[in-house]
């Protein structure tokens, strides 16, 4: 036991906060991620992480809560993409590209100003790699509130979104209003990206959004099962990542530790690779029968 869980893991308050926020954010990311992947909007999701980088760094500059910056600018970014035309296949690349370029430019400017004018040396690191171990416990209710908003929105539009994803023509003929449903999903995606930017950092939040969903979609053939599997993978990767990051302070002699985001993303990626094994084995074992 001692080798797996280093002393103090379960009694440390930063660990409690990290497990709570990490777990909640993983649930939202995985659920939203399933729809992001089946709608072919992974690139839009990734772009929103860059938008949230700009938002987080602007919030630091203004001395605001970074979560509000992450989520606030993501929402603006998703609205902009919707206006330019992310709903239409042809408009998608264009909308995403324009917003991507603008947000990276803004992020670069704000991060530069953060480091030069405010002498907050930790800002860049916190924005890019997350701050799951240093979050104030007072942040927990805010994170939970935004998570509930995102999940409730997803639950409300669940069926029309699924129908519209399968066939926009059929959905429109059944009276589904494609534009509001698509926009509601983009807003839920923006909130989810903002939350994961806070937890594991904006450059890595795409991994938590797409990784568990992509692995789950390889393992299941029903949407409900895919959602549950993705949530389980996301939460497991996050909690094990937190544990390993905590343990890593005791590895070697330097007592520096490794970033938690690295562990979470690495675990997610390994699970994704492993999810391909069942399919692969089926493919390679078929010709082997002939011998």
């Amino acid at each position, binding site marked *: 036991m001692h080798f797996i869980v280093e002393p103090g893991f379960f009694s440390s308050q930063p660990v409690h906060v990290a497990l709570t926020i990490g777990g909640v954010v993983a649930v939202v990311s995985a659920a939203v991620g399933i729809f992001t992947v089946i709608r072919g909007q992974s690139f839009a999701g990734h772009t929103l992480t860059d938008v949230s980088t700009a938002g987080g760094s602007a919030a630091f500059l203004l001395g605001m809560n970074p979560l509000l910056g992450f989520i606030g600018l993501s929402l603006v970014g998703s609205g902009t993409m919707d206006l330019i035309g992310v709903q239409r296949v042809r408009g998608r690349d264009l909308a995403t590209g324009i917003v991507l370029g603008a947000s990276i430019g803004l992020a670069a400017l704000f991060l530069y100003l953060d480091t030069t004018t405010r002498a907050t040396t930790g800002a860049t690191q916190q924005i890019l790699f997350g701050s799951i171990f240093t979050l104030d416990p007072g942040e927990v209710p805010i994170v939970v509130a935004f998570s509930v908003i995102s999940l409730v929105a997803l639950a409300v539009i669940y*069926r029309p979104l699924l*129908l519209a994803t*399968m066939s926009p023509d059929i959905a429109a*003929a059944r009276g589904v209003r494609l534009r509001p449903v698509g926009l509601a999903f983009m807003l839920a995606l923006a909130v989810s990206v903002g939350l994961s930017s806070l937890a594991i950092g904006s450059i890595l939040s795409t991994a938590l959004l797409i990784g568990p969903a992509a692995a789950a979609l390889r393992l299941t053939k029903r949407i409900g099962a895919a959602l549950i599997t993705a949530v389980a993978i996301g939460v497991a990767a996050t909690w094990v990542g937190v544990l390993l990051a905590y343990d890593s302070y005791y590895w070697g002699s330097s007592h520096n530790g490794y970033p938690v985001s690295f562990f979470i993303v690495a675990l997610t990626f390994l699970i994704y690779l492993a999810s391909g094994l069942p399919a692969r084995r089926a493919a390679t074992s078929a010709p082997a029968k002939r011998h």
Partner: protein
Amino acid sequence: MTDRSQPVTANEPDVLRVEGVTVALGGRTILEDVAFAIAPGSFTGLIGSNGAGKTTLLRVILGLQRPGRGRVVVAGDAGNRRNRSIGYVPQKVLLDPDMPMRARDLIGLGLDGHRFGIPMPSKTRTSLVDEMLAAVDAERFANARVGILSGGEQQRVLIAHALISRPRLLLLDEPLANLDLRSGQEIIGLLHRIATEHHIAVLLSAHEMNPLLPVMDRVVYLAGGRAAAGTTDEVIRTEVLSGLYGHPVEVLHIHDRVLVIAGPGYPDAARLAAEGAGIELG
């Protein structure tokens, strides 16, 4: 053009009446003064070459395209809620092989996919889906992902999806376009059986009328933006089609097949023939 047809069931009101519908898109008149009616439980073929306006007309009926002039009356429904009582299988449905949806899930979405919230499993729901799976002969692949099914199998699932909410009218946009002859015949047979047994009117668009001849009660023939409607004997005639095309055409009956042959000098004859409109060079 007016509808000269008699309803199949004389004392029931029509499930659909299209009255003087005119549609212009991008400054061009696509449909002009199109009028016809569909009786309950009847089978109607909407025939026209590529670009004749079949999809546009179906979109008008569904309320997705507002006509410039004229109106569409759907039985029992007034105004914008009409689309609920119409089943629809669009022309191109690209079902992603990676989409986590089994045939039975897709059929179930036909019940309540337009409603907000998460679907609740129930005995009624399952038995309705099972009933539809049987009706379209899809039990064999009920639990397979829809994206990996063949074209004909996907058509069956989409038809079941459109029918599970018990509409009185089913619209299908070129359901035979990407099917081989045999799968096409099977789908036609299936639709004919459903129309008769469940008393659901079918309006099916196609660019080739011959496969539909054995089952069609009525035909709506689109050409040059205008429509002629009636029984095949009334519509597929030299005078009627010549009037539609605005050019002499001849209708030939060869064995069980009908050929529509353009007289010399018809500007688009080669294009129409290439697209399988049934127009061939004379």
